[in-house]
């Protein structure tokens, strides 16, 4: 065996919600028997974004807020890779908001996990886009990633989990990764992952979460219905968790994920043969067409 980069010692505060995500992600990867070299975790910048250091697959540390762009570039260049992007709520919903929205539109088969702790952990506890009113002087209404995810007419898998419930989280991440590996499109999972140092919401969240799947009228293929269920749950002061959108198996090619639309042969840029010899004839035709 070649010796190559191995996971490093963890740097999170003891008790940080992110440990839950790490454990669930490891387990899901193991359960799905994904070989380490075939999987890539692209981390954001923030405490959460360090996760790529702690797991035995390929790791990429992207720029703050740009992890989705790097992850999508990776996937399109080599569609056989299992690509996970994972970072914080500041990374994903503040500086990364544009890419957050466009990832749904793009619909490449990658998994994006946001570890939402309603604060900027690594920069010491400022308000983030999901912070509630009053937190560190916050005066902006909190952003709800699930409602917005439901508003984008794409074939994405959408779910919310809670670090205090690792079993469900493992199940959801496994489903999401399988969804990706079946080339069914983008998967977005927001995990409620308390920051025990600056915003310890473990107790509160444990009390407030409501499994949307158990509510009457739940239908994970109907965005408006789930949108309404979530809105009502929130109005009642609770936090909906569970699978929010599970798109049905596609029936036509227009709902194919990005990589299949672009690369019907599933080879892709990274594995294309770029040797001049093998392309000479085609290049000659190409050059002849120019000018």
């Amino acid at each position, binding site marked *: 065996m070649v010796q190559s980069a191995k996971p490093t010692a963890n740097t999170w505060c003891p008790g940080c919600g992110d440990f839950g995500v790490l454990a669930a992600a490891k387990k899901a990867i193991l359960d799905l028997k994904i070989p380490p*070299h075939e999987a890539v975790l692209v981390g954001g910048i923030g405490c959460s974004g360090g996760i790529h250091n702690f797991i035995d697959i390929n790791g990429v540390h*992207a720029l703050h807020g*740009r992890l989705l762009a790097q992850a999508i570039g990776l996937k*399109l260049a080599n569609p056989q890779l299992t690509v996970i992007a994972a970072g914080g709520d500041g990374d994903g919903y503040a500086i990364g908001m*544009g890419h957050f929205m466009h990832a749904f539109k793009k619909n490449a088969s990658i998994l994006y996990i946001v570890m939402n702790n309603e604060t900027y952990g690594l920069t010491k506890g400022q308000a983030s886009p999901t912070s509630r009113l009053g937190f560190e002087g916050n005066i902006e209404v909190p952003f709800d990633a699930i409602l917005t995810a439901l508003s984008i007419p794409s074939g994405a898998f959408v779910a919310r989990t809670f670090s205090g419930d690792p079993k469900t989280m493992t199940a959801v991440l496994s489903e999401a990764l399988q969804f990706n590996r079946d080339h069914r499109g983008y998967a977005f999972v927001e995990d409620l992952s308390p920051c025990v140092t600056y915003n310890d919401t473990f107790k509160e969240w444990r009390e407030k979460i409501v499994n949307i799947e158990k509510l009457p009228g739940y239908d994970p293929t109907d965005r408006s219905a789930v949108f309404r269920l979530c809105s009502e749950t929130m109005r009642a002061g609770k936090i909906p968790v569970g699978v929010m959108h599970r798109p049905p198996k596609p029936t036509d090619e227009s709902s194919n994920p990005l990589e299949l639309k*672009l690369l019907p042969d599933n080879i892709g*840029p990274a594995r294309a043969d770029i040797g001049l010899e093998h392309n000479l004839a085609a*290049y000659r035709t190409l050059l002849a067409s120019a000018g």
Partner: protein
Amino acid sequence: MSIPASQAPAHPADTESAQRRPPKELADVSVIVGGQGGDGTLTVVDLLGRYFRKRGLYVYTSRNTLSRIRGGHADANVRACRDPRAAIKAKADLLLAFDQEAIDVARPELDADALVLYDSTSFKADFPNALGFPFATLAGGQLGQPIYKNTAAYGAITVLMGFDDAVARQVIEERFKRRGAEALDKNLKALEIGRHVTLEVPSAVNRWTLAEGDAHELILTTGNQATALGFVVGGGRFFAGYPITPATEIMEYLMRYLPNYHGVVRQGEDELASINMVIGAATTGARAMTSTSGPGLSLMTEGIGHAGTAEVGVLIADCQRVGPSTGQPTRHEQSDLAHLAHLGHGEFPKFILSPGSAEDCFYLTVDALNLAEKWRLPVILLLDQALCQNASTVPAFDLTRVKVERPSVLSAEQVAKLDTYKQYAFTTHGPAPFAPLGTPGVTSQITGNEHDEWGHVSVNPVNRHKMMEQRMGKLLWARDELPRPRYFGQKEARVGLVGYGSTSGPILEAMDLLDTEGIVTKYLQARTLFPVQQETLGPFLDSVDYAFIVEHNYTGQLARLIREEMPQYHSKLRSILKYDGYSFRAPDIAAPIREAVHGSKR
């Protein structure tokens, strides 16, 4: 020889009396076509260009458009020449004008003898030597659509310049065959309308004849197209970009080309997404590029630095335009070099390469891809609006001159033979080779944080110091492999010129001009702008009394960069600058040199 202005046929009615003269042979002709956006000026230029090429002439076309879609003054220029010229001719011989504004704008660009051909439908030209026909009225009357006025005007020019009838028609056929039978038919009729009225004016018939050239084997292309082609044959397979003038065509060409080679082109939601998608793609071993212009480049600053420190080889084509901010989106400038040479917070290695012609764009893009991958750093291909969008005739691209080399990429087989694989191993001579993400048997960590050899975050000061030296060392270690300049002119000349990109065209023409006056010069066309190539610039500067650094910006960015790196030459450097959005004409460059030479001889 040409008609003095006072004798010129200003209007068909005036022309009957004009005497016949022997036609003047044109071996270097420049035609401006001007009007409002939508008048079809570009079409006329295109038709003329096609004809000129069939005549074996070198062709160069350029355009001045506004950053708006319809309306507003727009003009375009086509030059045909027996010599290869990649520059706008200093003064035009003929202006085809669709309104008075076209004349007013072009006036300073017209030769003293120039003729203005114009559409007299709605105005009478205020210009001494003018010839008007009511093209729009004629086209409207005979074809039902005044918009054919442009092809009618082309018809008039075919008479003025004594085009071969059959070839003039052939050009129309080639151009319009894909637009359907009706369009073709009407354009052919418009050609005849224009020919017909012009033939009635004796002094207009064969006013000029066109020299014959021997440049029949050339192709007409732009820097943007050549870059896209170079990218494909150089093994480029991933492109992400965001529309922006004058870079958009690179993306548009690649959208057509790349899917045939398992390649991918994505329009990102912005430039931040584009550069980061490109970085992501490159980590898998795909050769990847983005293209942009000033505003997008500024937005990519953080991403380019990230590629530098994470050691991911990527290519960024920067199609310079007038800045800063939104600036003048459709205009020409070379004012991003200083930014690029010093780009970003912190320090990281990068190469800045610049092709001097559309032809060079093709080959240098291939080199850039090889270098980016081998040296694991961002390579910037520095273009400019004129180079990107002006079309010129160049020799057909030669695949035997193309090489795809991948010395830094480890295959699965190579990896299997290693004991340890460190993505950021210290070396003393160049980058550690890398196994693209996905290579069986190994996993990697790729990061923009300072890291140790494994890619793990490190704040150890000794490691930091070594890593900086490892990365920055590339700027030294790679020197021998970086593209060399092209040299032109007389070896023994004591007056030097240095420039890059599209300025090469006007510089070479200026040198010819000066040569006829007995001023011998030589020109170093820089192709590696960063790291500053001391080993080529040094001997060149040593060999001259002084050197003019010719560039399109205010501060003399290339000159400053040379001073920064080679301050000992400072007293030899003089700048020739232009920063009004327009390209140099040869005399703009010749004049200050002439003055300096005569001044120094006094």
